[in-house]
């Protein structure tokens, strides 16, 4: 079978690896559209993965790899902005992970190999979604298993909790009433009290904020016109419209991005879903029940307002009264679309 990849600490720049990736691998089928996305929030770990597998990256090899991202989730490691691997749908965001610097050899997510033909390696999200796990000879988790503060691994479908329950853990806190806010604030302060002497024990607002940051997932439903099966995407797994749109394209098997990737500052591929060149457009329903084109407002505001997503045929989207070219904000961020959209 495949050689078991070792774990050396080397990091490579995403750029170099991804070329090899692009050459060797085909587009990853956006597995499981849903939340499952693939547990590779791991930026660092994934890069290591790619180095090792850069050459001879064959298609058939990642089955046994799983998005175990011990190494990947090192907080505090500076991640080049280009490394938006984890931006695909997956269960967690890297920032939710505690520091794993105590770990020796990180377990890297497999997906790298399965990254799409796009320039950026989104494989992280996707490949792992497909599931594989590598059983390293020395199981890193042996070291951490019993620790008092266990590292979080992002593994598809693990721990085995039904989606309904997961959603309730995370989504309803978004619409919580005052009491629930207080209750959660109390919880956080109780939990944190030991650690930092109750510094969080006051100030509900502060807790609300920190709660928002710690919350691991924010799933919203996504439906594409013409596809009877709805999926779910974890918005907290992405930090930009580009990342989200790319993830959705993969999830719904929309036309692949051509290999002529625009070399934007971030190295992120330009999503056709957002630039209006596809027959589909990405829309969302906000808290007031109105359907809006995605990209109008800053990402953070979008997260606060969005309830669900819909990939609409552009003929319908026109009726929303805006052009297909998305809002100013997106234009500024990407720097790709020269002209501002019509008002």
């Amino acid at each position, binding site marked *: 079978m*495949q050689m078991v990849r070792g774990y050396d600490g080397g990091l490579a720049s995403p750029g170099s690896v991804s070329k090899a990736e692009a050459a060797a691998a085909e*587009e990853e*089928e956006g*597995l*499981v*559209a849903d939340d*499952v996305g693939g547990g590779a929030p791991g930026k660092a770990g994934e890069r290591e993965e790619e180095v090792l597998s850069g050459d001879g990256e064959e*298609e*058939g*090899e*990642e*089955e*046994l790899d*799983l998005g175990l991202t011990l190494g990947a989730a090192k907080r505090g490691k500076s991640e080049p902005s280009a490394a938006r691997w984890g931006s695909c749908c997956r269960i*967690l965001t890297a920032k*939710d992970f505690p520091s794993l610097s105590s770990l020796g050899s990180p377990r890297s997510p497999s997906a790298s190999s*399965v990254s799409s033909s796009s320039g950026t390696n989104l494989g992280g999200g996707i*490949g792992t979604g*497909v*599931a594989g*796990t590598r*059983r390293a000879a020395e199981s890193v*988790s*042996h070291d951490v*298993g*019993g620790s008092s*503060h*266990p*590292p*979080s*691994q992002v*593994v598809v*479908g*693990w*721990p*085995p*909790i*039904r989606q*309904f*329950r997961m959603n*309730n853990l995370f989504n*309803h806190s978004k619409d*919580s*009433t005052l*009491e*629930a806010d*207080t*209750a*959660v604030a*109390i*919880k956080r302060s109780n*939990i*944190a009290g030991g650690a930092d002497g109750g510094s969080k024990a006051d100030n509900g607002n502060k807790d609300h904020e920190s709660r928002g940051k*710690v919350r*691991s997932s924010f799933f919203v*439903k996504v*439906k594409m016109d013409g596809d*009877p*099966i709805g*999926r779910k995407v974890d918005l907290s797994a992405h930090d930009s419209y580009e990342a989200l749109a790319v993830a959705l394209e993969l999830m719904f098997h929309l036309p692949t991005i051509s290999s002529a990737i625009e070399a934007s500052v971030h190295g992120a591929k330009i999503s056709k879903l957002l630039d209006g060149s596809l027959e589909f457009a990405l829309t969302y329903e906000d808290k007031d029940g109105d359907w809006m084109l995605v990209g109008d407002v800053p990402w953070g505001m979008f997260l606060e307002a969005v309830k669900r997503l819909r990939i609409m045929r552009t003929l319908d989207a026109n009726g929303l009264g805006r052009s297909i070219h998305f809002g100013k904000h997106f234009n500024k961020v990407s720097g790709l679309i020269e002209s501002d959209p019509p008002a």
Partner: protein
Amino acid sequence: MVGGFRWAAMFPDEVWEHVFSFLPADADRNAAALVCRAWYRIERRSRWRVFVGNCYAVEPAAAVRRFPEVRAAAIKGKPHFADFNLVPSDWGGGAEAWVEAMAEGWPHLEELRLKRMVVSDDCLELIARCFKNFKVLSLVSCEGFSTAGLAAIAANCRNLRELDLHENEVEDNCLHWMSHFPESFASLVTLNIACLEGEVNVSVLERLIGRCPNLKTLRLNHSVPLERLVGLLHRVPQLVDLGTGKFAAQHHPELFSKLESAIAGCKNLKSLSGFWEAGPTYLPAIYSVCEGLTSLNLSYATLQGPELIKLISRCKNLQRLWVMDLIEDDGLIAVAASCKLLQELRVFPSDPYGAAQPISLTEHGLVAISAGCPMLHSVLYFCRQMTNAALLTVAKNCPNFTCFRLCIMEPHTPDYITRQPLDAGFSAIVESCKHLRRLSLSGLLTDLVFKSIGASANCLEMLSVAFAGDGDAGLHYILSGCKNLRKLEIRDCPFGDKPLLDNAAKLETMRSLWMSSCSVTLGACRQLARKMPLLNVEVINERKRGLPLELQPDNCPVEKLYIYRTVAGPRSDTPSCVWILR
């Protein structure tokens, strides 16, 4: 057949039918049907309840033809691991084929229970139109339908008694679906809409339940505010099973006392659930009914240990408790002291990814419960640490377990004190619990645990394995032992081709086998498929590769494998990521 003496003719058919009606289980009726042609004929015409554990195991038309008098059917679709997003969303499990066949052959169908199937609005409309005496619709973990489909059910099923929607993905496109119940409609006994995400028109709901004198179960969704719960309860004081809506509101003494008296007015309450966003403020409103409760589901409430203890220690007759791990060891110790009749415990993680500070829920809680609750037989426990010693103690305390599911959230976690694998602990469980029917393993495990399971778990019907084992031997132990094994699901274990091929015949005695992220190759699957024509060997490969599966070499690794016995041959509704090998 034995010629001459046709002993079955000693009695008229009706007598045999009456005799068969006492056979409790389908398995017994199946056995009776094999005795002779006469019994086969009599049995099939008198069977009115059918359970199809795998919707692809038999052609719908064949099932309908064989049992023409069926009134109640239960059908399951996707494999269990679909609950955890391991199965592609377009894998299958569509209900249309079954609903169409049933509409054709079972016009008198009264009950339909579907689990993990894709049910479209068209299906619901077909059900609503074709079954004139339809009484029970239960959909569990299904998807593909909307509230428009529910409107069709509401409008047309004049004798509907149960509408039980449990953890389904329901599209919300028909706000007023409940208004489609006619004014004359009064037959509801069970209404469970807890999984609906949209707003519910509470006034319509009030009127609906107000005219259903037999309503026993009412489970609301989280959109129903606490203030409205009061009015609802006043209309159904005969309620036995209540699922609240949102259980939080601004503190208001008047609301509190109204709620308290409304709940107290439900003198038959045995089961409580819901408690979405529950906080400490309104919890005491339910104290008056705690003594009578046999089932309590607080697993959606992020209540803290002290509140939980105050509540649960009043529930002296509790038999089933579902709770979050916020209860912690101290809470479980209190439960063990108060709830001596406890039979089933489920502890869910409030923080599955360990993002926050760890909760103090450890092996001690489990041990305390096992020691204090002699009637405990079913456990689902999520925690972060475990020891062999604790499991040995639990095994000793509870030899009557029928279901033991332990999920140590970090894969490969050893005994945290001895650093040993947890083989000894789980072995003790299977050796002590002779009636164990369901087992889920976790933690660091070698092939040894599988040896014990294969040898001792004689009643085991369902086994879930993840991140365990050293090699092929593990799987071989299971497949060559566990004589009652029906469902085996494995993920991320180093099990390969050999044990599968060596135990091919075993697979025909089981309902299904799921293996994902293991070490199985395409070649072995091909061999298995050739060797075992009564199995569907489904290879699921979600990554598009250059070559179609037919052209891939034998050593191509298989990502996901789903094998099930079937008399229907390969199914025709496979998506592009699924290949059925022949």
